[in-house]
């Protein structure tokens, strides 16, 4: 079983534009999440979404900038868990941008997952939380399913 997530997607925009959407908090908030991100190696920041206290996720992804290659590569650690001082689960998110055909091929790799003591708690929450996230996505961006009146 592969223990990592990989997505590759082509955007018809130059890497400089895609880079802005990956590194400017006001633009990141439009498609990803609210955060206090700064483009500085070693900067610690958090992405905030809606948590679910009964489901062992506090709604915060705890991150630290690991690598910056302007317009080409960005990676940050990505920790998550139930909060309240419990041990967090580790992982790493890496973005690679390749200029191609007047656009950008964006590669996302989310890896470095480990088995930890807090992971089994997730079994209690899986389905409900997924639905919740879908709901949040629609709340944040109601036009995504095209049903919002103009």
């Amino acid at each position, binding site marked *: 079983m592969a223990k990592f997530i990989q*997505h590759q997607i082509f955007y018809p925009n130059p890497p400089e534009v895609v880079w802005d959407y990956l590194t400017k908090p006001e633009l990141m908030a439009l498609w990803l999440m609210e955060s206090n991100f700064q483009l500085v190696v070693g900067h610690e920041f958090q992405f905030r979404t809606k948590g679910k206290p009964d489901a062992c996720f506090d709604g915060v992804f705890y991150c630290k900038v690991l690598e910056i290659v302007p317009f080409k590569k960005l990676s940050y650690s990505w920790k998550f868990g139930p909060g309240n001082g419990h041990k967090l689960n580790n992982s790493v998110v890496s973005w690679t941008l390749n200029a191609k055909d007047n656009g950008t091929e964006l590669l996302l790799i989310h890896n470095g997952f480990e088995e930890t003591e807090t992971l089994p708690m997730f079994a209690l929450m899986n389905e409900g939380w997924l639905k919740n996230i879908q709901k949040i996505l629609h709340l944040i961006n109601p036009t995504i399913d095209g049903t919002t009146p103009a």
Partner: protein
Amino acid sequence: MLHLLSKDSLTINALAENFDMSRPAVSKHIKVLYNAGFISIQDIGRERHCILKQDGFKVLQQWLEYYDTFWGSKLKKLEALLNDKTKNERP
């Protein structure tokens, strides 16, 4: 190996039959999986059975599935944003 065990627990011999590997090689592989906490080994009668430890395994799988869906929808959203931007710039 884990895929086979996800359907049923198997003896080491039965497992070995599914692979073109020597019995010692299979045993070594099983030991690695056992040390990683993916399987447990139980003596039932005279046979040693390998059993998939569902908890840790399934839970990690669930997180991976969650993040797969999560990033898939986020990247689609970014695509919609960038497409809008392109249209506005080149009317």
